[in-house]
């Protein structure tokens, strides 16, 4: 590879030794819940600790140190099976990009580095989202010294990517046609910023017709913005989108005819009765009077609103409003339904009802795109789940696939005193969560044998274990692992 950022003998490759703080860390500091975020960087033989006060400081640092820096301790930084290494960098648009396992599929492909190095960078004029891949199969170099007692550091060749991250739309369409399917939603390189604030930073979606797709993410991750763009409410800054087979930009009317949207805030007319609301929809869908009345009556019945049909919607309870809202969405018999947090704020019973409605709709062949903060909901309903964090899809797959991202879960050991804890940590490794609680988390593959081995090793050293609990992974773990920062560095090893 010739296009190294840091070639042998030239400037040292700066290493970030700590996880770059995220927005939440700055917020925690501002709320006085945590120490000021810091970044530890090693340049050559010198370790530097940077106290960061604003996220801008982080940007400034990355500017200072070049475009791409591998993340973590070099010794622990083993390349994943597909050759990727976690790194932080700055795209030319000054956006931070994290490269890691679990990145969206097109990205992983791009980063796949075989024995001969990364595959050729595809060049295309579409989205120039740049990312970098780091390879770790080069001999040590770059002027850095290994620490005593540790294996020599590998040098990472940093490739400033000029390739594209997103598959071009026409290729996706061609492959979909070849497979005989018509994707309900197809998006590549979807971007949206509000001023300086990047809300969506290159999103790819491919949702098959008739499936339930859940977009999962914490507050502020860009879920609602995604729905608003896909439902023609907001224009995207960049990216190609087709919904129901129609291009969002050039055929918004045809898209609107194919979709139904139930937003986060109830979209009913409070001054009209439930029935009038539905008749309004029927009129706007240009149904004839008799058909409109029939459909309104049927929907009122289906959604348990017949009794309340003559009452103004403003007097409805939250659950009733939500049901009326969905009934109005269905009045146009859409093929694709967007549900933005359909169960937020509902009591458990209303939530179950809503789930049943969604399942029934799905059974009738309607494609459903729902956003949720609740993992349980995604787990129950969705055929495929994508996790959105800070405007990027950090993972996508079935709930089973996502759970497999965090294999084995962990065993938590409790100790009576600090010495025992320290001894155990030396003996078996693991992550000390909390010195006060004196607990140790050890990766666990789910086998009885590994528990036996673990306890055997502790016994040999005469370390008394106060308590033991087994934590099997669920979507919560996946979610936290994918969306929260900072991550413990040793978690890298957990996944080995």
């Amino acid at each position, binding site marked *: 590879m010739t296009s190294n950022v840091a070639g042998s003998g030239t400037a040292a490759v700066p290493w970030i030794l700590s996880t770059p703080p995220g927005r939440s860390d700055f917020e925690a500091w501002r709320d006085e819940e945590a120490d000021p975020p810091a970044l530890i960087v090693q340049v050559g033989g010198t370790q530097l600790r940077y106290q960061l006060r604003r996220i801008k400081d982080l940007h400034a640092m990355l500017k200072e140190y070049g475009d791409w820096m591998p993340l973590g301790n070099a010794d622990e930084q083993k390349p994943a099976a597909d050759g990727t290494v976690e790194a932080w960098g700055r795209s030319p648009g000054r956006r931070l990009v994290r490269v890691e396992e679990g990145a969206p599929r097109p990205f992983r492909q791009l980063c796949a580095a075989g024995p001969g190095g990364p595959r050729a960078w595809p060049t295309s004029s579409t989205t120039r989202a740049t990312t970098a891949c780091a390879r770790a199969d080069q001999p040590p170099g770059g002027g850095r010294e290994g620490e005593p007692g540790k294996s020599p550091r590998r040098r990472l060749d940093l490739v400033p990517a000029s390739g594209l991250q997103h598959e071009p739309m026409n290729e996706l369409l061609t492959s979909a046609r070849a497979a005989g399917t018509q994707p309900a939603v197809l998006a590549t390189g979807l971007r949206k910023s509000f001023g300086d604030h990047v809300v969506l930073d290159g999103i790819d979606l491919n949702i098959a017709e008739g499936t339930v797709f859940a977009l999962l993410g914490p507050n502020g991750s860009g879920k609602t913005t995604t729905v608003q763009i896909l439902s023609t409410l907001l224009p995207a800054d960049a990216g190609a989108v087709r919904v129901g087979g129609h291009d969002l930009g050039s055929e918004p009317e045809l898209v609107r005819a194919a979709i139904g949207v139930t937003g986060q805030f109830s979209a009913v007319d409070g001054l009209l009765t439930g029935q009038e609301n539905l008749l309004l929809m029927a009129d706007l869908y240009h149904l004839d009077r008799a058909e409109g009345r029939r459909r309104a009556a049927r929907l009122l019945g289906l959604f348990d609103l017949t009794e309340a049909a003559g009452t103004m919607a403003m007097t409805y309870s939250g659950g009733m409003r939500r049901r009326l809202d969905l009934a109005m969405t269905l009045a146009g018999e*859409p093929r694709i339904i967007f549900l933005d947090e359909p169960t937020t704020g509902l009591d458990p019973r209303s939530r179950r009802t809503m789930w049943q409605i969604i399942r029934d709709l799905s059974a009738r062949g309607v494609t459903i795109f729902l956003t949720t903060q609740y993992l349980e909901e995604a787990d129950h309903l969705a055929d495929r789940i994508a996790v959105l964090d800070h405007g990027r899809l950090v993972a996508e797959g079935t709930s089973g696939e996502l759970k497999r991202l965090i294999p084995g879960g962990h065993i938590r050991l409790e100790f009576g005193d600090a010495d025992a804890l320290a001894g155990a940590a030396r003996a078996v490794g693991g992550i000390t969560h909390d010195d006060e609680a004196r607990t140790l988390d050890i990766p666990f593959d789910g086998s009885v044998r590994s528990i036996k081995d673990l306890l055997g090793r502790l016994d040999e050293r005469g370390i008394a274990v106060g308590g033991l609990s087994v934590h099997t992974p669920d979507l919560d773990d996946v979610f936290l692992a994918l969306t929260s920062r900072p991550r413990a560095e040793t978690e890298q090893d957990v996944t080995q």
Partner: protein
Amino acid sequence: MSISTSAPVIAPRGPAPLGARVRGLRDAVTMLRRDIRHALRFPMMTASGMLVPVLLLLLFAGVFGPALRGTLGALAAGGRVSYIDYLTPGILVMTVGFAAEATAVNVCMDMTEGIVARFRTMPISRMAVLTGQVAGSLIRTMISAAVVVGIAVAMGFRSSASPAEWLAAAGIFALLTLALTWLTVAFGLLAKTPAGANSLSLLPAILPFVSSAFIPAIAMTGGVRWFATNEPFTPVIDTLRGLLTGTAIGDRAILAIAWCAGLSLAGYLWARLLYNRRPPAPRVA
């Protein structure tokens, strides 16, 4: 509850096979029906828009009238001058201003409702919501005006107008309503809160005070006089007065129509721009 599986399987469905214009009109009529329903459900909004002009009529004709008649008499070229005859066209114009204020509040409240976000995701004519609201407001204002004229007649207002002149007066009145309503619809879209919409649209309600509504502009002095002579309400009021009570109109009618047409167009374009640009951010209902 569950959705019966015997329901028809959803088939791909395009927009109804109607011409875009017909569709737009039909959607606007649907939206007008919605607006009328709102008005019937909350008649207070219409009533309060009517109340202020009626109060002003009572106040100026009954309380200030005798004093003002002197001024008016001195300015008029001799002859008998009934103040209520002079005042009524001005009050009619104020009716438009106050009704338009209510429209601004209506539009602003509507925009904060999630339902408008829903309309934007539906295959309907984009401006139908606003057109429906303007049409509804036009109807409400006409009704208010009829009530004001009725009260004025009860108080002694006598018109010399022929049916054709009444029709022309109604036409000018409708034009002014259209102009002010489109303008206040834009105010309603611009304002973040109903209170903000209310204070923005005070302008069209207040401006007639500094016009020939209550006393002729020649009775004023300096800058105020210049303003009262040249502001858009004065030609409209003068035209209405000419049509209803037989005073001279001259070039005022042309000026009135030009102002109304210009303001309508500006208001419509501004409202359209704001509506298309406004981010969909409904507040929690």
